[in-house]
């Protein structure tokens, strides 16, 4: 795309870049279906659309927020001090602390939201998709604005995949599946077919 190649110094093109990165993170480089990150909760919590939406929303929120926080920690603290090799430890600590704090706040001030979203937060602390997105953001050297788009897009992409999977699994609930394939087995096969479908987006963005 022309705009991708253009000079990204002005704010306007930064924002456009963020939108493009967001779109790419959802479709062409879906964190779950292209990179297979965050598979364990994807398989275990995709039985019902309702819970999948809750978990997905929690992932969107945590992913957006932690990529931003970790961007700050990396570029403002680790890079100036030449301590980039600490990034793995620091990222994990920040993600864990942030999720804990958010869980506490939601539990206290919005019991309704807590029931729909909060109970999934502990599951997300150790979700590799979160750490994966943070590391991509560092490796690809995104700017802060682009990072917002990337974090949000990765979350939405993950949510879309798990909600679609839950929808499919609800439909095949009554189907006769060979005994050995029931549960995780058929889920992995479906995930593979979905991933194949997503390959179709390749080339939309360069």
């Amino acid at each position, binding site marked *: 795309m022309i705009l991708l190649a253009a000079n990204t110094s002005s704010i306007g093109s930064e924002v456009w870049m963020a939108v493009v990165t967001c779109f790419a993170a959802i479709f062409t480089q879906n964190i779950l279906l292209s990179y297979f990150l965050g598979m364990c909760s994807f398989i275990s919590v995709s039985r019902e659309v309702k819970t999948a939406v809750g978990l997905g929303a929690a992932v969107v929120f945590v992913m957006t927020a932690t990529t931003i926080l970790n961007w700050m920690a990396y570029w403002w603290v680790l890079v100036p001090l030449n301590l980039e090799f600490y990034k793995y430890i620091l990222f994990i*600590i920040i993600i864990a602390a942030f999720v804990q704090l958010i869980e506490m706040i939601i539990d206290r001030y919005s019991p309704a939201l807590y029931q729909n979203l909060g109970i999934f937060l502990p599951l997300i602390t150790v979700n590799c998709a979160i750490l994966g997105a943070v590391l991509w953001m560092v490796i690809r050297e995104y700017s802060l604005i682009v990072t917002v788009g990337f974090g949000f897009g990765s979350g939405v992409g993950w949510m879309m995949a798990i909600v679609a999977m839950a929808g499919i699994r609800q439909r095949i609930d009554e189907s006769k599946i060979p005994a050995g394939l029931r549960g995780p087995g058929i889920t992995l096969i479906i995930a593979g077919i979905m991933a194949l479908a997503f390959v179709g987006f390749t080339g939309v963005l360069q």
Partner: protein
Amino acid sequence: MMGFIFSVLLLSGIAAGLALILVISEKVIQNYGSCKITLNKGKKELTVEGGKPLLTTLKEQKIFLPSACGGRGTCGVCKCRVLEGAGTLLPTETPYMNDKERKEGIRLACQVKVRNDMEIEIPAFLFAIQQYQAKLAAVEDLTYDMKRFRFELLEPDRMDFIAGQYVQITCPAYKKGVDEVSRAYSIASDPQDNHFVELIVRRVPNGICTTWMFDYLKAGQSVQLTGPYGEFRMSDAQAPMIFIAGGSGMAPFVSILHQMRHAGSTRKADYFFGGNSVRDLCLGQQMAEFEKAIPSFKFNPVVARPQPEDNWSGQAGLVTEAVKRQYSDLSGHEGYLCGSPGMIDASIKVLVGLGMPQDKVYYDKFA
């Protein structure tokens, strides 16, 4: 070297700082302050620290909701009705609730957190449950394998119970290899004679608690009782009643008969007592006294297998057959059963078969 130390210190500092933020925010955010719990429409009001599950909060206030799993949300026993202040039903509670319970606001006390002022409803008998220090006052042999134990209550010295309720007795570790256990026994004494509690116990071969009570427990020895528990009791209706119980299942009925005698009740009550043989029959004397004091009460001992040498002139066969012989239509009656699960299930079948509505059969199953 300095750089290495600095970097370690920096990382530890960041981790410690984040931990500090979490600890402080937990203190600030998770502080719910004191909450007011109103029980049974103002019968009792508690002021408690918020933030903990309702079950634990009530326990700290000496209100013991029954719970089998200890608050992990796996048994569904700690149900109580929350009228206000619990929020919507949690996903962890839904598997234990039917539609009626959902509508009535029944919740699992171990899952509901006290966050604000609450209004709840619990069975009234739970208020009265206390721990009692008692001492064995007397033991009386009833049959070859049944005894009546009379306990004097010391601290507190009176127990207000409703005829039909039970107590739990704590059986200590009386010999090597036996742990402390508690067992439930129905109260078999006069509710007005509330300084004492009598239990009718049948010896269970190799039973932990009955062996202790029969062979180890001596008059004057102190024991620990908790109670009164249970909702088995006479209904407020005036419908004629059928009692069915054998052996130590007799206990709650002795208590109920005391209550009827005090009240001068004229409610019809037919007691079918089932025994395997004549030597299983007991308390004939006391039953005869009740028959005299309560004209509407009748005691029918039934012996399953009378031996020729017993000279048994009363009814023979199964107790359920005796009921069938005497009644053809029980649609207006109420049934009261106490005993083993097998005997109760068989009796329910017969009573319902004779037209008694299922919800008019009250029972206390020995688990």
